Structures are given as structure tokens and as C-alpha cells.
């Protein structure tokens, strides 16, 4: 580590920390001990446990009303139609790294927002990402930044000057493969998996050598002949089984296990030709970080026909379970249940609905397998009404866990349902492979891109729900009018930041849900907040519309 020069002192949850102001290499040791340098935000979720929680405590429930704009960075993308800016910035010693849609890495001065350099990647015209030409962020190791591209490349770029170090073709965009998530660095490897579950891809997780880009291991998320789980697929359906990766995984350094939420089986809404559980779709997998071998898996929604992919962040916590300390995983799933698992073994500990659920009457208390309700499956038009609807009780927007409050915070779609329609489908490479669709029971209650909402609360609303992870009980709820696409950040000083489809970015008291501060950013927020400090001042950043908005306390 090259953390030699003392740049200032920083109050962190009651302790004084030394802040390095020189740029130092981001070693694996620094990533493991990220919580000890909270002025930096070194990975997508802020740390290997993915709690999206900062130890920074300068912003408090008492003073957060004094937030003001520090700076705004407006995108200057080659794609003017792109409005999905879903990045979580990475900040290292005063330098911020973001990805501008589709695949431009930009290094910014975290004090002023002025750019140092832009690395512009030109994706193939064959790219066909299902759900937006976007990218959620970079990973960093030493002086290298890593990015997956929408046309299936992995690239490494010099963090100091934005020059390309290596570029590996990993998957074929013409077959619907794309990278959207921020990779995860573990030791000397960078791990990622492809999106494309709506195109009949066959998903996997792969690790690449940080120095060379050579692939080191690969784990098939749809097992092939001879691999365990192959018998959960009918006939040749495994070849087009989906099981995408949309989001960054987590890591436990002590167990050396990396955890990833896996996407839906293909085709999404018609499971007729893929009888069986369809492993490892809609599961969380625990892999040995050195070899990629499977240690355990837990499948939330076997044989899914609701697009309930498990593309949520696996949040790790060392907390008490029934009075004893235990290595836990908290997982708020798109299928409407909140799960607690033992992350050493994958044992199911508990699962409670956090929204209305009508497709399952509950979970088997021993195994956690859902108890299906007869007749609740996609059908001919107008379809079957299912709670939660197609976007789920929650989705890719990050939750947060605060070790201070002991609460788990879920960006929630409440009272939300869809009409699921089954249709026939045939696989043709590069074409959508969905087998039906899902529609709103009341068309037009809100505009797709935000800005207007005419919905009644009983037609669905966005919320931040705080639940006690030990019981699944709701502690409080902050209701929005429109739905939410925003993640949640908590601080050691009990401030919670989030936003929603209406464009408000706000601060709540993490203990009570009381509103402390708000501002209007003028567009849908489709990202998770993060926090960093520079020159002794805490900042909070959020992407919304086509801008990155950064706030600090008024001086």
C-alpha cells in the first residue's frame, strides 16, 4: 500500500481516521479492509459485504437539511437518446470513476466534478442488450479499471491516463450476450457474468487475470451434460436456459466464497419446454473465488415463469441469529420474499414476504422452497394476475443493511401486480426468446420514463421498507407516489439516502423513516447513492436522468 501522505483528519462514527490524499494503488488488502477507509468507495456496493453502508458520519439527522449541491456532471454521450444512467461511481483518493452510457469510462475530480480523461469504447452494432444500452460501473485493482461492455468484451484501462491495457472478446453480442454490471475484483482476478436472459443465452460466471485478461475459470450457470444440475433441464432446453448475471456479487474473505444472484430461465414466461427446476436460474450461488467451483447454491424460485430473477445484491452480515453470532446472507428477492441464509453452508434460515404475494402461499419451513398456488401461472390473454408483478417486489436497485440500526432497507414496489401472458416461442439466435409478456392491469397509470403519475395507491407505489431481518417484520415504510428505481445508502450516523421515479433525492432518519431533507433532480433516479469524502468533507452522489449529482454540507 502506498498510503503515506496524510491529507486530513476525518470523523468517522466517533473515531478519527487518517485520510490519504495521494492516489495509491488499490490492492486486494485495501478492498478487504474498505470499511477502514470510508472516504473512498472502492467497489459497486461499497465493500465486499455489499451493505451499501458508509462509516462516514459527518452528515447527521440534525444537519442533513443543510445539504447543498457540490457539483453536477452532465453526460455528453454519443447516444443522445440514452436516458438510463445507472452507474454507482467508484472513488479512490479524490478521483471518481463513472461509466457514461454505453461504455465510456470517465475520471473526474471528486472535488470539482471536472474530468481528467475519458476512455471511449465503441461497441459493435451487433450489440442488443435487452434492457438499455448502459453500464453500472467499473471495478478497480491496483492502477487498473475494469469494465464489461454491451457487446460482450471485458476491458482493462489505466486508471491514471484512461489508456486501454487489454481487451478480451468474451461472448457474442449477435447471440444476445451483453455485460451491464460492474465486475468484482477478488485477489488477482476480476469476475463478471453476462446479461441476455431474454435472448436465450446460456449464463456463466467467469474470472479473468487482472494483468493479462486471460480467463482463469468459468462456472456454467446452466449446467451442461455431465455437470450436476443438468437433469433439471428438459431435452436441449439447457442450451438456451438464460440464467444471466445483471449485478455485482459479494465476497467473504474468510470463507473465500463469492456470492452471485442469478437471472431468470429462458424463455421467461413459458416453461413448457424446460420442465424441471432449471438450476441455477433464480438462485444465489456460492463459488470458491480461486477456482470457480460451486460450494453451495440456493434456488429461490424453481422453474420460474414470472421473470423473478434473483438479480438482487446478496448482502452479507455478521450478526446474531437466534441469539448466536452467525455468518448470514440477507436477500430481498424479486419474488416478494425476504430470505436469511447461512452463507457458510447455504442453509435456509428464514423467508418472509415483504410485499403482497399470491403465486406462493409461503415457503417450506425446512427447505425454503416456495409452496405454489394452483392456477397461478401465465396464461392466454388477458393473462393471470400475479402479485408481485413482473418487476418484482424489488429488483436490481441496491438495498442497504445498517449494522447500526440492525435494519435491512428494501427499495420496494408495493401493491404491485402484472397480468402474465403465455405465448409460444421458438429459439432463433439473436432474437428475443421470451414466450409471452407481462402487462399492467391498468394501462397508462404512469408514464414509462417518469415525469407524470396518475396512479392510485392501490395500483402500486414505490417505497423504502425497513424490516427487521431477524423476524421479517416491517419496522417502517416511506411511501412514494410513483414507483422506485433507486437504491438505498445508509450511514453510520443513521442517515438513509434514496430516491425514486419522481426525481426526488431525499434523506430519511434510518431509525424512523422520517423525512429529513429532499431535493428534486428533474428525472427518474435509476441508481444507488454512494458516499465519499475528500478534503475532510463528506459527499453523497447519485445518478439521475443524464446527470451525476453530488451534495455536501453547506459551509
Amino acid at each position, binding site marked *: 500500500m502506498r498510503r503515506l501522505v496524510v491529507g486530513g483528519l476525518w470523523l468517522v462514527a466517533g473515531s478519527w481516521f487518517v485520510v490519504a490524499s495521494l492516489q495509491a494503488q488499490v490492492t486486494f488488502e485495501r478492498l478487504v479492509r474498505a470499511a477502514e477507509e470510508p472516504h473512498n468507495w472502492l467497489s459497486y456496493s461499497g465493500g465486499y459485504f455489499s451493505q451499501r453502508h458508509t462509516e462516514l458520519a459527518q452528515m447527521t439527522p440534525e444537519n442533513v437539511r443543510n445539504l447543498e449541491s457540490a457539483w453536477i456532471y452532465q453526460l455528453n454521450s454519443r447516444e443522445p437518446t440514452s436516458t438510463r444512467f445507472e452507474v454507482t461511481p467508484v472513488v479512490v483518493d479524490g478521483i471518481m470513476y463513472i461509466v457514461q452510457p454505453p461504455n465510456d469510462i470517465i475520471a473526474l475530480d471528486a472535488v470539482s466534478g471536472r474530468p481528467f480523461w475519458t476512455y471511449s469504447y465503441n461497441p459493435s452494432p451487433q450489440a*442488443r442488450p435487452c434492457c438499455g444500452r448502459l453500464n453500472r460501473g467499473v471495478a478497480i485493482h491496483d492502477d487498473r479499471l475494469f469494465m464489461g461492455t454491451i457487446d460482450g468484451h471485458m476491458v482493462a484501462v489505466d486508471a491514471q491516463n484512461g489508456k486501454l491495457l487489454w481487451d478480451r472478446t468474451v461472448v457474442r453480442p449477435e447471440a444476445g450476450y451483453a455485460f451491464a454490471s460492474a465486475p468484482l475484483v477478488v485477489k488477482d482476478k476480476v469476475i463478471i457474468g453476462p446479461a441476455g436472459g431474454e435472448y436465450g443465452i446460456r449464463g456463466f460466471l467467469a474470472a479473468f487475470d487482472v494483468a493479462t485478461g486471460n480467463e482463469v475459470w468459468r462456472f456454467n450457470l446452466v449446467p451442461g451434460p455431465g455437470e450436476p444440475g443438468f437433469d433439471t433441464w428438459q431435452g436441449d432446453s439447457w442450451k438456451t436456459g438464460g440464467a444471466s448475471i445483471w449485478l455485482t456479487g459479494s465476497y467473504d474473505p474468510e470463507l473465500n466464497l463469492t456470492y452471485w444472484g442469478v437471472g431468470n430461465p429462458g424463455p421467461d414466461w413459458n416453461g413448457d419446454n424446460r420442465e424441471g427446476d432449471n438450476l441455477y436460474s433464480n438462485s444465489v450461488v456460492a463459488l470458491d473465488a480461486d477456482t470457480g467451483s460451486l460450494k453451495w447454491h440456493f434456488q429461490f424460485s424453481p422453474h420460474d415463469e414470472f421473470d423473478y430473477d434473483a438479480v438482487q445484491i446478496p448482502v452479507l452480515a455478521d450478526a446474531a441469529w437466534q441469539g448466536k453470532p452467525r455468518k448470514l446472507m440477507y436477500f430481498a428477492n424479486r419474488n416478494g420474499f425476504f430470505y436469511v441464509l447461512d452463507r457458510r453452508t447455504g442453509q435456509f434460515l428464514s423467508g418472509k414476504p415483504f410485499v403482497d404475494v399470491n403465486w406462493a402461499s409461503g415457503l417450506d419451513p425446512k427447505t425454503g422452497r416456495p409452496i405454489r398456488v394452483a392456477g397461478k401461472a401465465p396464461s392466454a390473454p388477458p393473462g393471470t394476475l400475479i402479485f408481485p408483478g413482473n418487476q418484482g417486489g424489488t429488483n436490481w436497485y441496491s438495498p442497504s443493511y445498517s449494522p447500526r440500526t440492525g435494519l435491512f432497507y428494501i427499495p420496494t414496489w408495493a401493491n404491485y401486480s402484472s397480468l402474465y401472458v403465455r*405465448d409460444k416461442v421458438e429459439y432463433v*439466435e439473436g432474437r428475443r426468446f421470451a414466450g409471452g409478456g407481462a402487462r399492467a392491469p391498468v*394501462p*397508462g397509470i*404512469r408514464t414509462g420514463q417518469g415525469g407524470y403519475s396518475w396512479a392510485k395507491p392501490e395500483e402500486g407505489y414505490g417505497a423504502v421498507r425497513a424490516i427487521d431481518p431477524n423476524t421479517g417484520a416491517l419496522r417502517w415504510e416511506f411511501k*412514494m*407516489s410513483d414507483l422506485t428505481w433507486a437504491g438505498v445508502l445508509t450511514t453510520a450516523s443513521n442517515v438513509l439516502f434514496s430516491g425514486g421515479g419522481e426525481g426526488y433525492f431525499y434523506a430519511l432518519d434510518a431509525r424512523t423513516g422520517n423525512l429529513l431533507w429532499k431535493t428534486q433532480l428533474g428525472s427518474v433516479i435509476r441508481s444507488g447513492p454512494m458516499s465519499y469524502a475528500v478534503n475532510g468533507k463528506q459527499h453523497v452522489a447519485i445518478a439521475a436522468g443524464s446527470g451525476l449529482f453530488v451534495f455536501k454540507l453547506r459551509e
Partner: protein
Amino acid sequence: MLALLIAGAATSLALAQAPAATPPPPDGEQLYKENCIECHGPEGDDVPDVDLGRGRFRRATTDPELVGIVLRGIPNTAMPPSNFSEAQASAIVQYLRAKASRAAASAGNAASGRAIFTGRGNCMSCHRVNGSGARTGPDLSEIGRMRHSTDIERAIVEPDFMVAPSNRYIRLVTRDGATITGRMLNQDIFTVQLIDSKEQLRSLARADLKEFTFIDKSPMPSYRGKLTAQEIGDLVSYLVSLQGGGVQ
């Protein structure tokens, strides 16, 4: 057995006449449902400024241009390239063209319908067209682009059947006791916007409200029994003819 013999004869005949069996023509409707509906919607009007079911496109006018977009996508936008054959892409375009021409056909007399609209129908006491009429109801200057004729007819005879969410009426009571009714324009966590019965744009803080109620019934009266079937047909034709662009 008979069926088998006939089938066998047909096969021999086909083999004799054309060495390669002709595949059935691509089903444009099915291809549309499988590949396009997720973004464009069942009626083809989910993408802003695009209404595939009524011949409204942003970048193309001719069939070859449309086929080209289906095949190659629109670079740097959400419209992806596809792996369709030319015949399949053409089938999708033909399906959309047929849908558009069905939408354009209407039976009534638009001129008579206009007379009803501006005269004894008293429609302009609430609705506005091309700058004339009231603003408390929805402006209908582009209703022909926005709604299908069957939906327009249903709205005239059965206005409560479905009030479009963007036309919902609300009743607000402020903390100081004032009651405000009007058509809701927008809402969020903290505020609500409406046009009130005096055609004033209002924005109120939810914190200042004692009551906030959605009015489920449409304020519009039913014209069932008040107009003949022919008159309703004429009125529908007039409304379908309102395609926007009427104000210079």
C-alpha cells in the same frame, strides 16, 4: 388410410413440381408478438412518438425503409438489430400496415359528427379542439391518433367503463376548508397538480390537504339514447379525423 393416400399423392406432386418444399409464409402478427411487443406494446404505441399500428413512425415512411429498420435496428438506440429473414421482416411490416389501414377505415360522416360535437352534443362545454372549447375535460385535438375508434365509441356511450388514468378527476379539501375539484395532471410524494373547474392550473402540497379523493365516475354524461346509432357513428368519425396539427 384415405387421408394418408391423399397426403402421399400431394407430396409426390409437390416433389415433381418443385424440388424444395415451400415453407408457409411468415406470420407477421406472431413475429410481432414474439419480438416487438415488449418495447412497442400490443397496439404498437408504447414508444413515444411512434404508433406502429397507425402508420406513425419517426424515421421511416416506405416499406423498404421499415424492413431495413426491422433488420438492422437503429444504431445507438434501444431498437436492436435482428436476425430476421427479409421475408419475416416484410411480414411484420405488412402486418403493421394492415393494422393501420383497418384503423383508418371508419363508417360515419365526419362533417355531421362535427356538427353534433359543436352543437347539440354540447361537447365543447368541457372539451377543446384546435383551440376552441373548454379545458376542463381532455383536449381532443389529437384524439384520433391516440385512441382507436372502438374505444372512442365506448367512451361516448359508456363513459364510466374506463377513464384513462391521465383523465382522472380528484376532489381535494384543504386544511382551511376549501374544496377543489378538477382533472389531475400529476402527483408525487409531496405535491399534486390539477386543472380546476375554472380552468386554473393549481399545485398543492399534500401537507396542506385534509382530503385527497379520486372520483371514480367520469364527469361525462352517457350519450346512449340521446344520439342515434348513426349520429354516434358520425361523431366517432369526426373524432377519429382529429389527428392533431389543426392549429397553425
